[in-house]
């Protein structure tokens, strides 16, 4: 993480040429919104796709498409090779030990539902506790709420500090013998906080508590190694890492996946079927019922190739510079309060402006070509925790520029002028 002195920040900064070059890979960044160039600061909701990934998907449909696994003909073999090749890319990208630990799902949400249903139902009984952090996305709350109602388990909230960091002391105290599962996101989509996953995983492993980590907001921003982290389950989505929608990954430790019953039933996840007796296929196929998202898995593989082709260390430090610059710029706008000021953050700022509803901010910014998200960000408990109805969120990716942060700040100034905001 670079530290940049305030002197530099208060001046306009110039975006490095390497970033401008990368921008050329993303056709949508040339969009014009109402005569203004698009400033896309909604990467937390979904990231944009580089030309390389689009081309891979199109080429797949032009030359190789067929159903996988079940065919002896060449197209089917090619599709299977591409599809399973992408699985190996995912494995290597997140440092899993085996492709058996890589389950394709339709997204983070589906991945967590799989764990909640297959692992949760089998391992929770009345009186057991599920610890869930107060900064979770609904994807890591609602499935557990549903399972808790079914099993009689209890949901206990891990509190967070005022700066949006996890209260680790409280967490350690909550870890009693009734706790069976701990659910934490690697990075909060509402606050930007990066959580100490390794520390959490070590504490849980000691007590045989399963860790379910929602990596949706981490995977596109910095390298993740699930084995180093020591987690049991890790979930993420293709569309948050410059890949396609309709695809996600559940990483699960082989031993745990092995012990679990399938979530969905259908073709390809069974070894044999009669009306009286069915035997499940081996890992990871046991969890992949039906025709999988073939083109999307291949697109995800292409997104990984793309990320690997970049200097990710540079991008990570560049994104930190964007964050610091945005902090500085936002602090100059009257009435702005940033929600989430923890020390470790990805390049994302949630904020409120005195007396102006985020929805109005969003609309006015949109009129200036600046795309931000406003609302609760599918993290209502975070809003409740900070006593606010909603925030405006500017979430950056490595293709954003300092000039775009300037555009954000200029547009926000128009908001505060229009609404007559003072500090």
């Amino acid at each position, binding site marked *: 993480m670079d530290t940049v002195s305030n002197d530099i920040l208060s001046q306009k900064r110039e975006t490095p040429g390497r970033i401008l070059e990368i921008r050329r890979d993303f056709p949508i960044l040339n969009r014009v919104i109402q*005569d203004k160039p698009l400033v896309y600061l909604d990467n937390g909701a979904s990231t944009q796709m580089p030309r390389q990934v689009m081309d891979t998907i199109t080429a797949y449909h032009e030359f190789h498409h067929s159903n996988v696994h079940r065919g002896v003909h060449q197209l089917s073999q090619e599709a299977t090779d591409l599809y399973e090749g992408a699985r190996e890319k995912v494995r290597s990208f997140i440092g899993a030990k085996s492709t058996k630990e890589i389950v394709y799902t339709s997204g983070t949400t589906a991945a967590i539902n799989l764990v909640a249903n297959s692992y949760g139902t089998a391992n929770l009984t009345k009186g057991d506790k599920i610890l869930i952090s107060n900064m979770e996305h609904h994807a890591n709350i609602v499935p557990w709420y549903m399972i808790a109602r079914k099993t009689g388990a209890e949901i206990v909230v891990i509190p967070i500090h005022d700066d949006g960091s996890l209260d680790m002391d409280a967490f350690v105290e909550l870890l009693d013998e009734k706790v069976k599962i701990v659910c934490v996101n690697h990075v909060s989509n509402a606050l930007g906080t990066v959580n100490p996953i390794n520390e959490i995983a070590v504490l849980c492993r000691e007590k045989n508590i399963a860790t379910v980590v929602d990596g949706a907001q981490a995977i596109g921003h910095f390298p993740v190694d699930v084995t180093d982290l020591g987690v049991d389950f890790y979930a993420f989505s293709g569309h948050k890492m410059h890949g396609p929608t309709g695809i996600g990954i559940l990483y699960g430790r082989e031993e745990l996946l092995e012990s679990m019953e399938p979530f969905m039933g259908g073709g390809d996840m069974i070894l044999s079927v009669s009306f009286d007796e069915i035997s499940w296929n081996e890992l990871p196929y046991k969890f992949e019922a039906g025709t999988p998202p073939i083109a999307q898995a291949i697109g995800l593989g292409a997104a990984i190739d793309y990320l690997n082709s970049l200097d990710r260390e540079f991008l990570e430090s560049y994104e930190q510079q964007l964050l610091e610059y945005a902090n500085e710029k936002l602090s100059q706008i009257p009435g702005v309060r940033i929600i989430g000021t923890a020390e470790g953050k990805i390049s994302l700022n949630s904020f409120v402006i005195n007396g102006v*509803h985020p*929805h*109005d901010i969003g609309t006015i910014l*949109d*009129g*200036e070509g600046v795309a931000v998200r406003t609302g609760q960000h599918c993290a209502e408990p975070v809003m409740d925790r900070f006593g606010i109805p909603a925030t405006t969120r500017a979430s950056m990716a490595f293709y954003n520029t300092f000039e775009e942060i300037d555009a954000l700040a200029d547009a926000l100034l128009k908001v505060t002028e229009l609404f007559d905001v003072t500090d």
Partner: protein
Amino acid sequence: MLLTNRSKNLYQEVILDHNKNPRNYRAIENPSHFAKGNNPLCGDKLDVYLTVDENNVVTDVSFVGDGCAISKASASIMTTLVKDKTIDEVHKLFEGFHDMATGKIEPDDDPKLRRLRAFSGVKDLPARVKCATLAWHTLDAALKDKEIVSTE
């Protein structure tokens, strides 16, 4: 300060003023009709209170709530407009407003919509139509004796 047309269209003086100084912003003690409105997409929440007399005339109307400028101004202006109107007239006004907000008619098509024309800009912003119409939907629900309404 230059705002693009779309935003300028929407955030006119009248809306900003009603947002800052909402009219009839209070609860009515013993309303004859009441409903809660809810737009979960942006967290807008409104309570609408009405007193309707035996001739079906709205003798008092008020609101309390939290929301964006559009929803708040819409509620405020609504209260000023429906007072002393019959329920029938209120329904007609709602209909006209709804058609204007969704772009089905122009504000100039109907003189009764004159004082609502500030909201005609939302038709270009589909995500905001619900903000503009929340108060009206809630009023409608109150008159139909539905207690809770959601515009999502």
